[in-house]
C-alpha cells in the first residue's frame, strides 16, 4: 500500500465501525442507475457487500449483464458518492459469482420501475422461464395482462419490447434472468 494511502484511510476521524457501513448503504440508496434513473443501485441488488478492509470502505458490486455499458459508470458513481459522503478512498471490486439475477431487485425497485412505465420482471428466474419465455406480463400503464411481445430486445439488453392489447401502449419489460 502506498504511504499516502496509509495516511488517507477512510477511517480518519470516523469510528470505522458498523454505523459507517450503515451510513454507506444509505448513501448508495441515492446512487441511481444511469439508464433507469428512478431505481438505485441498492434497488437493483447489484451492491452485494460493504465492509472494512485495511481501513478502507470495501464495496462489492455484481454487474448485471456481461456487456452492460453502464457497469463502469455505475462503479464510478458509487465511488464518487462515497467520496462526497466523506469516505476518502473507497475501494470498489467486481464479483461475478453468484451471477446477478433479477430476483435481487427489491420491492421498492419493482414499484419504481412500474411507476416509471417499465414492467418489472415477472416471477423468479429459472432456466425454464428463460427458455420458454411464457409468462403473462402486466401492462405498467393500465394493469391489463392482455399484452404481447413485440421484440426480444428493447432499448437496452436488460429489457424486451411489449405492447398492451387493451390500452394499445407499447412498453419496455425488464427481462427476468
Amino acid at each position, binding site marked *: 500500500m502506498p504511504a499516502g494511502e496509509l495516511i488517507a484511510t477512510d477511517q480518519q476521524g470516523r469510528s470505522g465501525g458498523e454505523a459507517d457501513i450503515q451510513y454507506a448503504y444509505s448513501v448508495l440508496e441515492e446512487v441511481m442507475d444511469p439508464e433507469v434513473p428512478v431505481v438505485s443501485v441498492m434497488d437493483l441488488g447489484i451492491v452485494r457487500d460493504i465492509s472494512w478492509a485495511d481501513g478502507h470502505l470495501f464495496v462489492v458490486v455484481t454487474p448485471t*449483464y456481461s*456487456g452492460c455499458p453502464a457497469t463502469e459508470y455505475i462503479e464510478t458513481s458509487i465511488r464518487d458518492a462515497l467520496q462526497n459522503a466523506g469516505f476518502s478512498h473507497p475501494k470498489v471490486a467486481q464479483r*461475478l*459469482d453468484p451471477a446477478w439475477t433479477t430476483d435481487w431487485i427489491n420491492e421498492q425497485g419493482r414499484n419504481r420501475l412500474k411507476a416509471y412505465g417499465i414492467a418489472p420482471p415477472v416471477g423468479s428466474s429459472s432456466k425454464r422461464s*428463460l*427458455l420458454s*419465455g411464457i409468462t403473462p406480463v402486466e401492462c405498467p400503464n393500465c394493469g391489463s395482462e392482455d399484452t404481447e411481445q413485440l421484440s*426480444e430486445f428493447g432499448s437496452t439488453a436488460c429489457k424486451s419490447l411489449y405492447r398492451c392489447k387493451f390500452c394499445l401502449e407499447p412498453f419496455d419489460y425488464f427481462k427476468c434472468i
Partner: protein
Amino acid sequence: MTKYDELTEFLLRLGDSALIHAQRLCEWTGRAPALEEEMGMMNVGLDLVGQARNWYEYAAERINDGTDADTLAFRRDERAFRNLLLVEQPNGDFAVTMTKQFFYDAWQFHLLTMLKDAGDERIAAIATKSLKEVTYHLRRSSQWVERLGDGTEESHQRMEKAIDTVWRFTFELVEKSDAELVLSESGNIPALSELPEQWLATVNNVFAKATLTVPDEPSAFYLSARTGMHSEHLGMLLAEMQFLQRAYPDASW
C-alpha cells in the same frame, strides 16, 4: 503453433469466438431488416463483447506479461486468433446470419452448461453468468430458425441455402480435442465428451420443427481455429476491427 498453455488457449477460443461473432453482428447496424431485429442483434453482440472481455481478462492474467484484454482484442494477428471458423464467415442474408447465430448459440449453451461446474472457479463463474445471456440468445435464434424454415417457400429455400453455406464449418463444434481432454483430466474443466451429441440433438430438434433437413456429419478440412488456420474472411474483419488501435496505438476516448 500454440504459444500458450492449454488453459489459456481454451480461454482464447471462448473469448475470440464471442468477440468475432459480435463484430459480425455489428456489421448489421443500419442494415437490419427491421428495427427490432437490429436492436436484438446489437444487444446480443453487446452481451458477447462483455463475455469476451471476461474471458480475455482471465487469459491476460495468466499470460502475465503486461497483456490486457484490449491487447488481446486489438494487437494480435489473424494466426493468433482462436475463434471458430463459423463465426468469422460473412453475414450473407438474414437467413445465413440466423443460421450462424443458432449453431453458435446451441454450441455455447451446451458448453457453458458444462463449464458451470468447472473445477476452475473463475471459468465456472464466467460460464454461469454468460449462460443466462446465452440461454436467451438461443431462445431467440431457435425461434427465428423455426419461423424462417417453416415460413414461406422462399424463406424455407433461403434457410436451406444458408445451412448449405455454413454447415461445413460446424465440424469444429463436434470435434474432440486432445487439449480439452488434458484440461478435463487435470480437473480444470469437466469432460466435454458429450458436447457434440448435445449440440447435434438441439440442431435436430429445432430443424425438425422448422421442417429443415440436417445434413450429414461435417468432416474436418485443412482449416482449424485451434492452430490459427482461418478462412480468408478473418483477416479483412480484423483489418476493420483493429484499425483504430493499430493506426493510433493507445488512443482513448
